[in-house]
């Protein structure tokens, strides 16, 4: 959403016959822009056991660029990750996502981890519990929920989103995943529904008031990411939702679909999206023709107009 247009519309609607000078408008607009940019970022806890794909999920949802390791747990300490976002550039960075270490690594680590959970969960807007969709035995998860985490922040858990990652591996397995349509086979789809039903039942056994959602998705296949993000939005307190949405940078599902299967309009939109776009201001400046740069260097307004014209 274009903030300037929004403020102009508000000025028209709210001031009636009063005329606002351009100078006043510009001052007010800058103050609003500053407030929007400096709104404290939302805090997310991405929690779950080792290897469930927390970092991949962060990357798929927010383009966080975290290191993803397939050999060992790569997130050993609670780290604040300021992930990139694609709408309004904020001074204090973007979404704060706590990539929580897995609980199942060892008894010793587990005790440390629970202490870290206690510290972090009190401070976040929403918790996303990531499970491996193949793992039917969620007894340990029930135990953590019931004994350890429930005591920390019961209200937080009631809104918790359960994210079932790696649905492409659900029985009969990855070979059944449709490689061209990037979809589960019909058999897999039925099995995924069954797992969701099963997990929902088990979570309700320990958290009868749980109001969250369960979403089957694949960070690797970029499958069901909008659905997952939508469920997360429901878990964010109302007034903070726009901040979360402005950070959304989902990995493109259609990129992994064979173009021959796409409807024509999606084929065209995919072709447009495939044009490489510079992501950092330094890249934009570097790619600008030198005369253009010299002309726009001292004029912020003209530079912003130029950016808009370039579709950046």
């Amino acid at each position, binding site marked *: 959403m274009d903030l300037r247009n929004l403020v102009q519309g*508000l000025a028209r609607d*709210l*001031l009636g016959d009063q005329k606002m000078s351009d100078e006043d408008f510009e001052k007010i607009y800058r103050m609003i822009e500053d407030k929007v940019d400096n709104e404290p970022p939302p805090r997310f806890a991405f929690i779950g056991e080792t290897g469930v794909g927390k970092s991949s999920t962060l990357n798929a949802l927010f383009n966080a660029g975290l290191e993803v390791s397939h050999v060992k747990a790569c997130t050993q300490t609670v780290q604040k990750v300021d992930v990139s976002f694609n709408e309004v550039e904020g001074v204090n960075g973007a979404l704060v996502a706590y990539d929580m270490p897995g609980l199942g690594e060892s008894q010793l680590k587990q005790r440390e981890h629970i202490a870290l959970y206690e510290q972090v969960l009190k401070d976040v807007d929403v918790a996303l519990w990531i499970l491996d969709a193949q793992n039917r035995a969620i007894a340990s998860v029930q135990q953590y929920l019931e004994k350890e985490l429930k005591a920390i922040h019961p209200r937080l858990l009631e809104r918790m989103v359960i994210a079932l990652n790696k649905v492409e591996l659900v029985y009969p397995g990855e070979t059944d995943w449709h490689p*061209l349509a990037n*979809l589960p086979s019909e058999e897999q789809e039925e099995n995924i529904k069954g797992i969701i039903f099963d997990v929902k039942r088990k979570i309700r056994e320990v958290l009868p008031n749980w109001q969250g959602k369960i979403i089957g998705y694949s960070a690797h296949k970029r499958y069901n990411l909008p659905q997952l993000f939508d469920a997360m939005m429901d878990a964010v307190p*109302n007034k903070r939702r726009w901040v979360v*949405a402005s950070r959304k940078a989902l990995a493109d599902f259609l990129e992994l679909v064979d173009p021959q299967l796409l*409807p024509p309009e999606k084929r065209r939109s995919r072709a447009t999206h495939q044009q490489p776009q510079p992501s950092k201001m330094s890249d934009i400046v570097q790619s600008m023709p030198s005369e253009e740069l010299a002309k726009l260097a001292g004029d912020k307004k003209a530079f912003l107009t130029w950016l808009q014209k370039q579709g950046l």
Partner: protein
Amino acid sequence: MVAKTRAVIPIVKFNQTLGNLSMKQVLNETYIPDDDLANIRRRLISHIESMSDSELRIAAKSEAIFQNFVSDLFKSIARIFGYLVGKVVNLGKDIAKSLICKDIAKSLSRKSSQVFVLEKAPQDLSLPINRSQVKVLKLEN
């Protein structure tokens, strides 16, 4: 002179029954038999629609709140600048409208049928011959 011959790769679709296994031979790993293609395309389109619905919901959940946030900021700052500030009537209208349209479409598609009951026709009269003799029956509900 060598006769130019065009290599023909037969599109062989046949079933090899190996015990209970039925295998279908296709040209290559990306070949999709016609009958499967329509089904896959239908499922893909349905998935893309579900993604679009989610995107729309995400936008709706955030944008009206964002507009309210900016509106509150504008009101408080404009007052400091000495302006008299009124109320916004249609804030978030467009977003809400798109959602309402979707809801209406959904409710229309699943509207339950209503049963109307006619009063009982008189049994002792013969059937009318002329249109003017027709008796109009009323609905009981």
